[in-house]
């Protein structure tokens, strides 16, 4: 299994390559990718340098072009596909049909991976994308149980990549409008979820902090209570008179204990989430997953989870807690 790591900038890319990523995924500094955050992503010069560095070490670079352009902006996405081809990227990761179709026609030899934002959860949907746009890999949305992943792997016309670690989107990717409902800006259209410019923290004299997203109260924290980033799905709300994390707690996905099953199912690549995270995160997470994959490859019968891996990963998890998420039926 290939290890695919996030790189929000050149130092993160170097760290990922250094610590064992087989491939890194990156984005241009605009809304063509789903992590269009201020201060993140690559200028053209940085991308040239990143690809050169990765290729010198025999690693691959995938360029995420996984947002959905509207009719007026679609040419900008097509131009980004052209640049990805010209820069020598090893693949693009895209979700929108228009972008995939343009890439297939204009740069047929540039591999096309279906992004998680493409919301394909079945062999039928994957077959559509394969027959229509010649995708050579797809990233599965984080909604399937491990048994369902195994079945889709067996029936899929293309190799699959699954999320292994990182912040957990709990909705079907590509079909979540919670961010735009509150801010007008969405992962699909603008490459952002709950953008920071809409976040407002207020501290009361008693130390209580409230956090709002465009004026909507997402959560309130006592003085010493740990506080997470206010995406709508990780807030605390009142349902039936009870206040709790009604959708999900601040937590990260960690599937390391499923590694043998994912390998056996024929999963082609494990994806680490977190282009918005720094060098320390990328280094630690890449190093641990590299070790886990290598040890499994060397000796699958006697492979077991190393306790040190789990504590190191938990330290980099949202809310310092991890979950098997949808892979585990009990989460549903």
């Amino acid at each position, binding site marked *: 299994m290939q290890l695919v790591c996030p790189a929000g900038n050149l130092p993160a890319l170097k760290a990922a390559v250094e610590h064992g990523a087989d491939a890194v995924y990156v984005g241009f500094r605009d809304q063509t990718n789903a992590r269009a955050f201020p201060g993140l992503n690559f200028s053209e010069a940085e991308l040239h340098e990143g690809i050169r560095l990765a290729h010198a070490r025999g690693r691959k670079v995938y360029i995420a072009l996984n947002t959905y352009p509207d009719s007026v902006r679609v040419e900008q996405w097509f131009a980004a596909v052209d640049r990805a081809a010209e820069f020598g990227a090893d693949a693009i990761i895209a979700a929108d049909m228009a972008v995939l179709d343009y890439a297939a026609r204009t740069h047929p030899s540039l591999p096309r991976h279906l992004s998680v934002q493409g*919301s394909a959860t079945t062999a039928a949907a994957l077959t559509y994308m394969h027959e229509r746009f010649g995708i050579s890999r797809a990233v599965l949305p984080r909604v399937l149980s491990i048994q369902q992943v195994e079945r889709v792997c067996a029936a899929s016309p293309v190799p699959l990549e699954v999320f292994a670690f990182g912040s957990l989107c709990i909705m079907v990717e590509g079909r979540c409008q919670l961010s735009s409902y509150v801010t007008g800006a969405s992962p699909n259209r603008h490459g952002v979820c709950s953008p920071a410019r809409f976040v407002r923290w207020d501290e009361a004299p008693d130390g209580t902090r409230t956090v709002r997203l465009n004026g909507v109260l997402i959560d309130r924290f006592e003085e010493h209570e740990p506080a997470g980033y206010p995406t709508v799905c990780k807030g605390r709300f009142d349902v039936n008179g009870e206040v709790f994390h009604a959708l999900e707690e601040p937590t990260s996905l960690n599937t390391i204990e499923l590694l043998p099953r994912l390998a056996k199912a024929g999963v082609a690549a494990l994806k680490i989430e977190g282009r918005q995270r720094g060098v320390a995160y990328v280094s630690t997470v890449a190093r641990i997953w590299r070790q886990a994959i290598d040890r499994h490859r060397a000796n699958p019968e006697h492979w077991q989870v190393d306790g040190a891996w789990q504590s190191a990963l938990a330290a980099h998890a949202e809310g310092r807690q991890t979950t098997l998420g949808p892979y585990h039926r009990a989460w549903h």
Partner: protein
Amino acid sequence: MQLSLGPLQYFWSRERTLAFYRNAATWPLDRIHLGETVCSKRRELATRDWVALADELAASGKQIVLSTLALIEAESELGALRRIVENGRFLVEANDLSAVQYCRQRGLPFVAGPTLNIYSAQALSLLIEDGLQRWVAGVEQGHDLISELRAAMSALGQTMPELEVIAWGRLPLAYSARCFTARALDIAKDDCGFRCIEHPDGLPLATREGDRFLRINGVQIQGDEITDLAPEITELAALGVAALRLYPQHEGMSDVVARFRAAVDSDTPVARVGAENGYWRAAPGKAGLPLQPA
């Protein structure tokens, strides 16, 4: 302008559902969408019951469309989808690419439901090649995006398909593997007891300040507000919108349909009864929120 009854998003008892649709057959609607789009565990009506209901309602002269699941996870769900696509009589609303693929393989036309991601004329054109006959715009596709898409279609020399826009109801915002109703009731999804049947208009979720915010509807999250585009009917007509989608609600649906029928047939603008749909103005979907942070 046509009026379409959107698929029932909530889970109602079999009796309630059948009674609702038998009444709906008498309302001034042009089209009725039938079928389960949210959760395959909801089986007060099985797939064959929905198809039988479609046969029954077709006698009313209204067009009947069979809607399909937005999120498909299990083989059994694909099997049910295949049976709907192969019903042999009714047009299918595809809410996932799985349904698009099944229709395309069989050379059948389909309606593109609001959960297919169509943001540009180019994407729409590709789906037209696959058999798209009518397009129900998603929640993020507001006036300007559609207007620009229409212009781009004509620049591409493409004919715009029939366009349907959500004009009444709570906006479907997100879908998950997780059942949020089960979570709120502290029960396991696999042993949920179908408790969402107790919330025929969804389960309200409020902020900690008590402001109504979202609606929990099983694995689906909706906006809490019932959006109302009736005051924009003139503008919708000018944009070439062919049909208005009205989402079923537990009470008062007959009045909702009658009000829209009167509004569509009259030249006098009507006052808003529900909430403004911010998405229509390229603003946050929830009414009254600013486009730029304060």
